[in-house]
């Protein structure tokens, strides 16, 4: 039995949206204190839509696959929807992760949330209000 699902291996081998957005307006970097892995998300938000997203990850196969999948799940989506992204959704989209690797998908959720916080701070936009609209 392989360690990871085919989906995980696909996203690990061919990660989508790798890199940096020079004019990002939301950047989030988070780390897992236990394993020491670090993930960084760059968002370009326009008209409350995630127009572009890129990531950099220092971490295991499942962390790289989770970041890749997470970027796919939020690209082109309204901020109100992106806010609700959970690590579970990321793991499910990858056809599951081994139990002891679930925390890697948490890193992806947290990196995106942190990038949204940064966006909020930079633009002074109240994202919660945006949801009401």
């Amino acid at each position, binding site marked *: 039995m392989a360690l990871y699902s085919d989906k995980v291996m696909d996203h*690990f*081998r061919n990660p989508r949206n790798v*890199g940096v957005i020079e004019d990002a307006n939301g950047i989030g970097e988070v780390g897992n204190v236990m394993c*020491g892995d*670090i993930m960084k998300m760059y968002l370009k938000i326009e008209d409350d839509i995630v127009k572009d997203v890129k990531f950099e*990850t*220092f*971490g295991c*196969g499942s962390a790289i696959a989770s970041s890749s999948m997470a970027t796919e799940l939020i690209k082109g989506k309204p901020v109100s929807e992106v806010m609700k992204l959970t690590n579970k959704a990321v793991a499910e989209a990858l056809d599951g992760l081994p139990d002891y690797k679930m925390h890697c998908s948490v890193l992806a959720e947290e990196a995106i949330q942190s990038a949204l916080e940064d966006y909020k701070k930079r633009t002074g936009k109240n994202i919660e209000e945006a949801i009401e609209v």
Partner: protein
Amino acid sequence: MIYADNAATTKMSDKAIDTMMKVMKEDWGNPSSLYSHGQKAKEILEEARKKVASAIGAEPREIYFTSGGSEADNQAIMSAAAIGRKNGKMHIISSAFEHHAVLHTLEKLEKEGFEITLLDVHENGLVVPSELEAAIKDNTCLVTIMAANNEIGTIQPVREIGEICRKHGVLFHTDAVQAIGHIPINVVLDNIDMLSSSAHKFHGPKGVGFLYVKKTVRLNPLIEGGAQERGKRAGTENVPGIAAAADALLEAIDKMPEYSYSVSKKRDRLIAGLKEIPHSAINGDEKKRLPGNVNFCFEGIEGESLLLLLDDKGIQASSGSACTSGSLDPSHVLLAIGRVHDVAHGSLRLSIDEDVSDDDVEYMIDSVKEVVDYLRGFSPVWRDLTEGKREYIL
């Protein structure tokens, strides 16, 4: 496929497989039975004991077959502790980077009231004999120090350690699981009282090992039951496995001079090649290491992704990264030689044997370079390092 994880386990040799098959098919009797079929199995068992004894300079009656290295480590340490306790000596000295079979047994003894001293193994992964001597106290009952480390391959000064122990009347056990069949060890010349070994590290079968115990040292059984192994290890003997282990060991000893020369040449080429990777460092002393062991840290990357990508290129290796451990703890060996967590993260162990060709060595160097480069390309840690926001450690 290039198999570069011989420290984890080795492929059984053809000779060992043939021996095992023959014993399973023809001589499958119980060595404790009186009739000839059982006695034939007994003969094979005792023949194997003689072979193993001769390979390490011991007497046959000083060899006890076990289920492997872990059991041998447990039994040796628990027996020495029992002797110590009886004499009111409750202090044990070991090193910080022993295998968990040793460290966890020592932790258990610590809970039972033993005092445990773990010697520093320094940046080069070597115990310093004078530091050992200084640590010995009146109530020290055991020194247990591995002959060669399983992760970074450093070879300890076993003979000197043994000499010091003799001088102070302290029992000396060595976990020689990585050493037996790879480097010369002689229990008499090396002043060893107890030694653990495991067959699957020298092209023998898994689940078979042995414990050498000097005849003057009292061994206690871990497993109670029948009178097998002179009453020290109950349970019907794994005769096919034991016979195969003995043959594999003799083969390994036979080949050792040639193996040692050719494999360490390849090791040195691998080390030279991987050193060209910027911000990398070899783990453990460069020369005082097992012929087949190469262990590096690469700054700015993580080991599990490195292993998975090398696997895609047909290279089977291992890492001390927290992400590969299941427990999320980085390798205690790398921490013991002073590698910080961040750096231990990007570790790679290649443990080769004679099946690896010169071309394979070049291919491994190129592949590791390529994969490290690729992973650094999207590592936020590497970016911070290159942009001066973080200081290089290596």
